[in-house]
C-alpha cells in the first residue's frame, strides 16, 4: 500500500477528478480517489476533500457529508496529525464537521461567483503552505455560492493572533482590500487552519490553477506540499 494522497469523493463531489489530475499530472504525486463509504485511511500520506455539492447541498453545504462513513476515519487521521486539505465544498465539510472553526455563509451577493482572485498567504506555516514564502500571493479561481467565511469576533481574533488565517483575498499587488473580497468573508478570509496546522480549508481552487494553458499554474505551488508528505511517509 503506497502512501499516496487520498481524494475523497462524496456522491455529489465534482472536483475530485480535477484534484486527482492536479496532484498526479500537476505535481507528480501518487493519488487516488477514495469513496465516501470507505472506512480506512490509514495508508494515506494526506487527504484532500475536493469541491462540489457533496449531497446536493440544499440544507447547508457540507451538512450531510459530515456524517458520511469516511468522516470517522478522517477525524482519526486528522487527530493523528495527518495533513488534510478541504477545497471549496471540502472546506465547507470540514467546517460543518468542526475540524475547522467557523462556517461558510451564502455569498454577500447571493450569487454564485466564478472568477480568478488573488490570495495572500501570511499565516503561520501549515502542512499545506510550508513551501510558500511568507506573504506570497497566488492567483487562484473561486467558484462557489456559499463562500463567505463567518466566525464570531472572539474566534476571529483568536485565529488572527495565533496565525491560523492561512490566506486572505487581496489585490494583485498583495494588498488585502475590501474590493478584493469576492463574497463577504469576515476579514477577507480565504483559508484557515486548525490549531495544529495540519488541517486547512481554502475556498479558492488550487487544483484548477494547475496549467498555464487554462489560465494559470499557481495552485501547484500549494499542492506541491503533497509530494513532501508522500516522501516523508515512505
Amino acid at each position, binding site marked *: 500500500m503506497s502512501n499516496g494522497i487520498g481524494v475523497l469523493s462524496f456522491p455529489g463531489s465534482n472536483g475530485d477528478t480535477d484534484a486527482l489530475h492536479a496532484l498526479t499530472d500537476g505535481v507528480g504525486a501518487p493519488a487516488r480517489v477514495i469513496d465516501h463509504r470507505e472506512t480506512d485511511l490509514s495508508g494515506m500520506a494526506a487527504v484532500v476533500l475536493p469541491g462540489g455539492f457533496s*449531497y*446536493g*447541498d*440544499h*440544507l447547508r453545504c457540507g*451538512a*450531510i457529508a459530515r*456524517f*458520511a462513513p469516511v468522516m470517522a476515519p478522517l477525524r482519526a487521521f486528522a487527530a493523528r496529525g495527518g495533513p488534510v486539505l478541504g477545497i471549496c465544498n471540502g472546506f465547507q465539510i470540514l467546517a460543518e464537521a468542526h475540524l475547522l472553526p467557523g462556517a461558510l455563509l451564502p455569498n454577500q451577493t447571493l450569487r454564485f461567483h466564478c472568477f480568478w482572485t488573488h490570495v495572500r498567504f501570511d499565516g503561520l506555516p501549515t502542512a499545506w503552505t510550508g513551501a510558500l514564502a511568507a506573504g506570497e500571493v497566488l492567483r487562484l479561481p473561486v467558484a462557489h455560492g456559499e463562500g463567505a467565511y463567518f466566525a464570531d469576533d472572539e474566534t476571529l481574533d483568536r485565529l488572527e493572533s495565533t496565525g491560523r488565517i492561512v490566506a486572505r483575498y487581496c489585490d494583485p499587488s498583495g494588498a488585502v482590500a475590501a474590493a478584493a473580497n469576492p463574497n463577504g468573508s469576515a476579514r477577507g478570509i480565504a483559508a484557515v487552519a486548525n490549531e495544529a496546522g495540519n488541517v486547512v480549508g481554502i475556498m479558492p481552487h488550487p487544483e484548477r490553477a494547475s496549467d498555464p494553458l487554462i489560465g494559470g499554474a499557481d495552485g501547484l505551488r500549494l499542492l506541491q506540499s503533497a509530494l513532501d508528505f508522500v516522501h516523508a511517509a515512505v
Partner: protein
Amino acid sequence: MAEGRWMVEVIVMPKEGVNDPQGEAIRGGLRALGYAGVRGVRAGKVIRVELNAAGADDARAAGAEMADRLLANPVIESFHVAAVAPVGVEA
C-alpha cells in the same frame, strides 16, 4: 389603534405534488443518521418581516400581500402567514 411595529412570519412551502429535492436530501441525511422512523421531509422558507402597521389584522394582510407578490411563486409554492406579533414579543 396607532401605527405600531409588528413582526409577520410567512412560511413558503413547495406546493403539494411539487418535487422537493431539498426535502429529499434532508430525508436521506436523517435516515443515514439512523432516524429510521422518518417518513418524509418537506423543506421551505420562512421570512420574518418587521413592519409598521395599524394593528395585527393590518400586519397580517400586508404580510399576505407581500408573500403573494414577492415571496412565493404560486406556480410551485404555497404560503401562509404563520404568526403575527407586536415587536418585542417573541413569535
